[in-house]
Structures are given as C-alpha cells and as structure tokens.
C-alpha cells in the first residue's frame, strides 16, 4: 500500500516537474526568423535614444550616455535589480554577442545561454520593435567603446531568484506580437504608437502592474504608485491629458517643461534627455498618440 502511494507521488512529482519544464521552456528565435538586413548605424544611434538605453545602462553616476558600464540600481517590490554592462567589452559587456543573441535578448528576454532575463529589462515593450530597428541598434552599440565594470548580481529573495520561473511569467505577459499599424489611424499617430509601445517603453512605468509584476494592459498608461518608492507615476492616457495640447506634450518631450513651466524631474528627467534627441516630427507623433484615446485602444 505504502509502496503504491509512493509510486503515485513520484509519478505526480515527475508530471509536475515535466509540466514546469515545458511551461518554462525558453522559446528563442532562430537565425531563419531574422530579416536579411544590413545595420543602418545612424538609425541605430536614433533607436539608442528612442529606446532610452542610457537611462539604465550608462555607467552609474556618470553623465556620458555612451559609456555603458551599467550598475544603476532599480528598486522594485520584488527586490533590487542592477542594470548590466551593455558595452562591447567581450568580458563584462555584450561584445561577444551575435545579432541573433541581441534580438533574442531584446524581443524574447533571453540571454545567449537561453536563460531568462527579468522584465526589469523592458523586453515586453521591445518585442514590439521592428527587428530591423533592433539590428540597427546592435550595429550602433558595436561602435561604442568597451567598458570594464563589475555590476552586482540582482538582489532578489526566493523564489524570484529562480530565472527558470520567468518562462511561466512570459507565457502570461510576453505575447510575442510586433507592432502592427492601425489602418484607421493617421501615419503620424501610428508612428507615435510605435515609439510609445515599442522602443520608448513608456507603459513600463506609466501603466500599473499586477501582483505578478505584469502590466495591467486594461489600465493602459493610467499611471499609479511609483514601484521604485515614494510618489506617483502620473497618468499619460488621453483622458489624463485634458490640460495638455499636442504641442504642450511635444514641447515637454523636447525641453522638460510642463504647460505651467514646472520642470519634469525624477526618472522622467533621463527620459527627456533621450526624447530631446529625437526629431520634432517624432515628438509630435508621440504627442499625437498620447492625445488619441482611439489609438490607445488598438495600439498597446
């Protein structure tokens, strides 16, 4: 009798382990999934600013956006994350990576060894990017100076320190969809939607998260408590922006000034350092998307 119970228990445990293994299995892209594309370095530099890479990955405490030694601490309810070195250094950075490795990191949240990255790296947004833009960005990053640095490991308690479990998280929150323009919207709004939902990864802070740390996509861009600590992240959904014209928004992204000439601070200051590098057309496009409740329904 006891033996039979034991057998059943072992069988159940094996089924459980098998299910866990299947559910959490990494699902990388293969070389055949990549477009045949020569990196456009100028567009790669542009994507570097559109994607806000330096805000987290620039050497902590420095002010050179192209010195990518990492080290910034990102606090969260799950523990502290430390932004890694993404300079072309082969030891400390990502110098040894292939283009496929880079696209898998950006769009699947997978390391070259197919370990899961934590979603503090906003691949849930970067998955929306055109692969060409990602490849261009890789080309640009390769031109920067290698930086040696040692970044602390993430400080996460059990069970969040088990990267394998993120495979299950990804089934819930990484839908694998690239950006699809909405034919009912203008080209300007679609371009803004691309920049907001993809490289700009605005929702990663401006959309609240559920208990598992996934974006509450039904509450798109409505803001909420600041997961990094005190204060609130303001809502930037169309309904929150009645006091802002499209021009006001574009000007804020250029200068950091609100319509009452308050100067945006906190982590938005770093965002403005990036958006100030974009073209006026793109800042207007972002603003057009933010003012369009209709666009925020279909493009998120």
């Amino acid at each position, binding site marked *: 009798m006891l033996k039979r119970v034991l057998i059943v228990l072992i069988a159940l445990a094996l089924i459980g382990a098998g299910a866990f293994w299947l559910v959490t299995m990494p699902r990388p892209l293969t070389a055949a999934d990549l477009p045949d594309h020569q990196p456009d370095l100028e567009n790669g530099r542009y994507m570097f600013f559109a994607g806000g890479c330096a805000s987290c990955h620039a050497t902590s405490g420095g002010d050179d956006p192209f010195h990518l030694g990492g080290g910034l601490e990102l606090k969260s309810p799950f523990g502290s994350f430390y932004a890694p070195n993404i300079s072309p250094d082969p030891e400390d950075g990502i110098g040894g990576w292939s283009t496929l490795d880079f696209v898998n990191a950006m769009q699947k949240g997978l390391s070259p060894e197919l370990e899961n990255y934590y979603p503090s790296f906003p691949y849930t947004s970067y998955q929306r990017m055109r692969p060409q833009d990602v490849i261009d960005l890789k080309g640009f990053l390769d031109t920067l100076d290698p930086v040696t640095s040692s970044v602390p490991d993430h400080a996460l308690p059990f069970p969040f320190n088990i990267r394998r479990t993120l495979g299950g998280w990804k089934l819930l929150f990484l839908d694998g969809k690239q950006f699809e323009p909405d034919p009912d919207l203008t080209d300007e709004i679609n371009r803004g939607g691309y920049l907001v939902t993809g490289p700009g990864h605005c929702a990663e802070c401006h959309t609240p998260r559920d208990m598992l740390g996934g974006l509450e996509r039904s509450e798109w861009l409505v803001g909420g408590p600041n997961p990094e600590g005190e204060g609130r*992240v303001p809502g930037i959904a169309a309904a929150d922006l009645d006091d802002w014209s499209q021009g006001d928004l574009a000007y804020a992204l250029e200068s950091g000034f609100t319509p009452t*000439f308050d100067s945006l601070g906190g982590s938005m200051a770093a965002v403005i350092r990036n958006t100030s590098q974009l073209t006026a057309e793109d800042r207007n496009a972002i603003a057009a998307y933010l003012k369009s409740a209709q666009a925020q329904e279909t493009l998120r």
Partner: protein
Amino acid sequence: MKHLLFAGTTIALLTATAASWAAMDPIATRQAVMKDNGAAIGTLAKMAKGEMDFDATAANLSVRVLYSGAAGFTSLFPAGSETGGETEASPKIWEDMAGFEAKNDDLLNAAASIKATPIADLDGVKAALGALGKTCQSCHEAYRIKKN
C-alpha cells in the same frame, strides 16, 4: 499693456512669496518661490517659442526673479520641514544637504552670469533658457518627488 500685465503678475506672485516668508512657513514659502520660478522661466520659454514677443526688460526681469529665488533658497528646508503641506521635497535633501545646495548654486551661478551680461536679443533668451532650464531639471531629477 503687456508690460503692465507681466509686471502685475510678477508683483502679485512675489507678494505672495513675501507673505509666506513673513509667516515663517518654509514649505509654503518654497512652494511660492517655485511658482515664481515657473512664471519667470515660462516668460523666457514663451519668448523662445515665439508665443510672446521678445522684450528685453521682461526677459531680464525673469532672470532676476530666478536669481533672487535661488538666493537663500536652501534655508527654506530646515529640519522639521521634511513632510506636510503637500511638499514634494525628496527626503534626499536632508540626507545630502551639500548635494542639494550644489544644485541650487548651479541655478544661482547661471542666473548671476546672465545678469552680468544681460539678455539683448532672442538668441540670448534661448541661450538663457537652455542654461537655466538645465539646472531646474537636474535638481528635480534628484531632489523632487511627484505626488500626483
């Protein structure tokens, strides 16, 4: 007429600021100073954007408002004024007063050097806006927490 309106608004704001100084309410005073700063930088920004005609008097008055706002500003953050009055001051101010004072000095110095060579044309407005605005952003980045 526009002159009068501008001068009137500025004086009204500065009077409010002076009133809270007199009442020895540091939180209300620093908030009032920040409103003055917003009005002053807004004048420069509107000229730079072409929403307001260039006016050397108004532009240079704005720089003076920012200069006087920054002078002694950090004394409005005494111990005991960390919370209350819907303050958006970050606790980091009291953890790192020297760092906070250095940021305030950046504004003071930027305004002082423009005061020494007053704004004479629209390009001067744009240059001043850039130099002053950078100091707003850098201090708010480190020492201000948005509550709403």
